[in-house]
């Protein structure tokens, strides 16, 4: 059942991505920036996907601390890893975009910096997990760390409003934005596609984590016998 669902979702994600790529290729270039502007259709949805993943990681971490149910812990690892991959994609596309428009690969403005810091924090989460052997302690400490890391995320989102930065202001869903409606729709559809992809990757990763736990359990039982 689960496998069939995954294959179905995979097919849907593939079709949606193919359709989006055709639509994006068909759009005209932006007036000031030309074709490179189209990278926004990946750059921004990837960032949103990573933020959704971070929020999910926070929720799952809190749930773990409340219930001590290891399924939440496994799910938290899965979404964190997927979110990290999408945040990496976001950072790299942003860097390439910046090279064309600003003439530099990287600038230490607040938003870029805090996105990178978020990446480092969640990478630290995975390294912390690697360093702890005992499962209960690992899950608890990782959950606490994940909650701490999430407190960093609002700083990413709001820094753009708090500080004058090189990164452009938000253009979607805000009153001062200048993004045309049908472009927003394309962007949202691509977000749906990326979210679908992220969910599939997360589900596979979750399955792996559960298998790993079963293996560890059987091994412990075997040694105990």
């Amino acid at each position: 059942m689960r496998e069939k669902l995954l294959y179905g979702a995979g097919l849907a994600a593939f079709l949606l991505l193919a359709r989006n790529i055709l639509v994006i290729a068909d759009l005209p270039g932006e007036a000031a920036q030309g074709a490179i502007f189209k990278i926004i259709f990946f750059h921004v949805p990837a960032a949103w996907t990573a933020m959704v993943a971070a929020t999910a990681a926070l929720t799952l971490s809190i749930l773990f601390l409340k219930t001590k149910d290891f399924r939440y812990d496994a799910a938290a690892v899965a979404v964190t890893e997927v979110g990290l991959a999408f945040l990496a994609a976001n950072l790299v596309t942003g860097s390439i975009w910046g090279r064309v428009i600003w003439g530099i690969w990287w600038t230490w403005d607040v938003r870029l910096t805090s996105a990178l810091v978020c990446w480092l924090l969640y990478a630290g989460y995975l390294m912390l997990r690697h360093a702890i052997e005992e499962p209960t302690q690992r899950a608890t400490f990782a959950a606490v760390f994940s909650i701490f890391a999430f407190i960093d995320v609002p700083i990413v989102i709001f820094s753009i409003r708090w500080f004058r930065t090189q990164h452009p202001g938000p253009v979607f869903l805000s009153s001062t934005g200048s993004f045309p409606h049908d472009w927003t729709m394309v962007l949202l559809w691509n977000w749906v596609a990326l979210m679908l992809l992220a969910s599939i990757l997360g589900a596979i990763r979750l399955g792996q984590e559960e298998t790993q736990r079963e293996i560890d359990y059987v091994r412990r039982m075997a040694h105990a016998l």
Partner: protein
Amino acid sequence: MHLIAHLPLLWAQASPEDVVLEMARLQRNFQFLSYGFAAAWTILTLFVLMMVGRERKLKRQITSLKAMLEERQKK
């Protein structure tokens, strides 16, 4: 016909050199756009490859575990 085709250029007071420059800029834009998408999908592919590696490790652990259990049962 030829003249009409050049009218927008005359109107914008642009020389043929400007057109060449603009075309180079657009070309570069396209190039970087393709770099961007290629890099993004490479990262996601790397992530998938990491998961495949993990899957293989799990399979290996399962087979070794099964072998160990069978060994135990024989004894």
